[in-house]
């Protein structure tokens, strides 16, 4: 069980959160006429590292805000502070 820190609610148990996959995956600019490869890369391909992974979590049973943090996929240790990813910051 992970203890995930929400920037607004403080440390909460993992069951209150929903994992949102890799953080910082940029969508292609629509005006730049992205290629099929660029679009499928954005939609389907993730880095899936062994080690430090920057990922998103949604505090779905709490304040329902998105946060991002770095977690080791080997030890599950959370290696960074949680950052709010929405427009409101604490």
């Amino acid at each position, binding site marked *: 069980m992970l203890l995930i820190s929400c920037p607004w609610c403080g440390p909460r148990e993992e069951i209150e959160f929903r994992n949102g996959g890799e953080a910082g995956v940029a969508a292609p600019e629509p005006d730049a006429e992205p290629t099929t490869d660029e679009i499928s890369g954005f939609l389907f391909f993730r880095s899936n590292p062994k080690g430090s992974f920057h990922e998103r979590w949604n505090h779905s049973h*709490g304040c329902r805000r998105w946060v991002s943090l770095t977690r080791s996929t080997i030890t599950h240790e959370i290696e960074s502070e949680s950052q709010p990813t929405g427009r409101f910051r604490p």
Partner: protein
Amino acid sequence: MVEQRFADGGAVSPLGNRTFDPVVVVAGPGVEVLEHSFTDQLDVRLDPEPAVLGALGDRLRVAIPAEPNRVGRDGRRLALWLAPDEWLVLDPDNLEDDVARLTMEGGWPPDVTFVDVSAHRTLLELRGRDARALLARGCPLDLDPRVFGPDHCAQTLLARVDVILFRLDGTDAFGVLVRASFARYLVAWLTDALEGFYA
């Protein structure tokens, strides 16, 4: 005001109660659970500008907390922080007139919303010396009074159900807001947990 109405003109709460007075739904030696039926509830969403929060607090006659997971109180009226841009205002007496006035008067930023959510959840009160220990059986939060103080509120899980938890005014009692369709399950769970408690 938004309770289900039947042909006989009566109203019935999610737990089958027909009165505005609190009704005991679970009772044990050291704990009692009551349903406060038909508590008026208003969901407010707006940008958390201090001036707008102040104006809203003045118009609703209750302090709107800017700090996360805190409760503003004035008498029986409460304002609970739900998210950086969302609050829930509760009043067991009458919120309807204030809501009508708020929405009629205008003068709010364009992205403000006021939604009457009185039928969304019902309010349970857990009181008695064992109320905290009973809650702790199904809730991952630290409910110790040094951590979860009288002006705290939290959205969390109780027996795998989404709830809003807060301390009722001036007492050790807890308020638990639960969605209408989960209320019967939660009361069944509390009844069951309580049985194990005194075994």
